């Protein structure tokens, strides 16, 4: 990156470090922080939407929808989330290829599952075998996002279902007495009021989501854990910047990153909770009223 980095062997001390930390591979590490942040930015709203639909389904008067909704919310309770992560990534990948196969090669006669192999026609491969590397990476990242959203959607559905149940029943009955329809009660009374009950659970979920991001590594995405292992490993003198095993320091750096991230989130969410509790008929709101804020 810097002009004096042309010959790494002649460098010493801080100059060496500056050059070392700006190699192309280190840029990959810095970019992968962007990967993690964009995963968070996409997953959080999508999971919230999944959770909302799940909670709505779990409350629905229509039995099959209720069963699906309840099943979805119950899914994450007894089973480790990492099982879902490992499962969904393959299952989604195979599902997409299978669908694509049915559409593109209707006259393919061989069975898809041949013994130990999963074989679809070459045109149905997603992404195509001929597509460039970055398409594969984006597709892998997309699968990871969908997987995260599905799992965290189930967590969010739990929280939102509880929040919907927590809205005082009298509020809804009053709305019904005014002649509002089911949909109107839901839109105008239930949804606006449930957020303050959902916020503690949702902020918890956000923390869990942050702490789940290193699992991207297990889903085959080149995330920060991947780069920390890659860059930290001992480099012999065959490399431009030889160094002993530094993985400990790289992981220490990741630890500090996560600690800082969760701490900042905590502070912001605490403020948000205080803001939303103002004037609400909850314990926190009552305490603020008494304190005269």
């Amino acid at each position, binding site marked *: 990156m810097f002009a004096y980095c042309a010959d790494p062997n002649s460098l010493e001390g801080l100059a060496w470090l500056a050059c070392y930390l700006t190699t192309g591979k280190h840029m990959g590490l810095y970019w992968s922080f962007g990967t993690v942040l964009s995963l968070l930015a996409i997953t959080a709203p999508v999971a919230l939407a999944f959770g909302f639909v799940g909670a709505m389904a779990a409350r629905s008067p229509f039995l099959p929808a209720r069963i699906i909704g309840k099943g979805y919310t119950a899914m*994450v*309770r*007894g*089973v*480790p*989330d*990492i*099982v879902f992560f*490992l*499962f969904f990534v*393959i*299952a989604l990948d*195979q599902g997409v290829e299978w669908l694509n196969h049915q559409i593109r090669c209707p006259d393919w006669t061989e069975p898809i*599952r041949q013994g*130990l*192999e*999963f074989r679809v026609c070459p045109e149905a491969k997603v992404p195509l075998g001929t597509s460039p590397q970055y398409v594969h990476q984006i597709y892998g990242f997309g699968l990871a996002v969908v997987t995260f959203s599905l799992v965290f959607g189930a*967590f969010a559905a*739990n929280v939102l279902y509880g929040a919907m149940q927590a809205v005082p029943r009298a509020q809804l009955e009053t709305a019904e007495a005014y002649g509002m329809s089911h949909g109107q009660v839901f839109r105008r009374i239930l949804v606006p009021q449930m957020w303050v009950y959902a916020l503690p*659970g949702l902020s*918890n*979920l956000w923390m*869990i989501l*942050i*702490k*789940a*991001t*290193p*699992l991207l*590594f*297990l889903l085959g995405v080149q995330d920060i*854990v991947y780069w*920390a*292992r890659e860059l*930290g490993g001992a480099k012999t003198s065959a490399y431009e910047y030889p160094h002993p*095993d530094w*993985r*400990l320091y790289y*992981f*220490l750096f*990741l*630890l500090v990153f*996560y*600690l800082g991230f*969760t*701490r900042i989130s905590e502070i912001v969410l605490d403020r948000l909770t205080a803001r939303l509790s103002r004037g609400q008929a909850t314990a926190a709101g009552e305490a603020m009223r008494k304190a005269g804020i």
Partner: protein
Amino acid sequence: MTCWETISAYAFRSLGYGQRLLPRSDFTLCQQFTLIGSGLIWNIYFGLVALVAGFFLANAIALAKTARSPWVRKPADWFIFIFRGSPLFIQFFLAYEALQMLPRAGINMLWITIETSWTTRAWAGALFVLFLNTAAYSAEIFHGALKSIPKGDLEAADAYGISGWAKFRRIQWPTMLRLAWPAYTNEAIFLFHSTTLVYFSGFPAFQQRGDALYYANYFADKTFNPFVPYPIAAGYFILLTLLLILAFGAINRRLNQHLPSNMARKIRLRPQVIR
């Protein structure tokens, strides 16, 4: 190979007994059930030992966090912050790398040489991380419970002349446990769930002796079919969770037995403490 033979060959494979080679082709359902169940032994080992040992440390840290002296309180605060604020996955990696830095030949203390190579093995290293991790999460729960002991209980203790250690042992601690128990049940459940991370986080599965998810992953990789092994692993974990809820529910009933039934705290499952 009949199913019975498979069970006798693989039931304790995860501990290193029985058939050495894992199945490589013609995977049967029986093999998958047996091997994944065999791996579950490790999950139970990690979860149980970490939970029991962590319980004591958690009590100590929760008390330290309520201490008035900052020399005692601050370290407890930091311990809880570090273990709750960072992903368990990163903690595993970090611990593994740190333990590998220990001198290979062992540490020479006076005349005794302390072996260090066993610390990088999962049974010791990962267990240590899980122990500290669950202690931090539980300490936070216990601390919250200590803070919410009804003021009247403590005043009553004072009025009866119970103070110091006796007050803690007979009034504060049982009440803390009772108030914390539903949340602690959750913590226990998610601790068992997080034991599945061990073999995906740097700690190598020595001679392919892994936990339930390690074998499930093995089968899914070999058969390209995730629809069989993962549901099996999930089924085992649901069973384990149900057993945990039964055991913790029984303790909860015992802790609440002196209260009228409508005042007893119910255990509600909440995904609040996964890491």
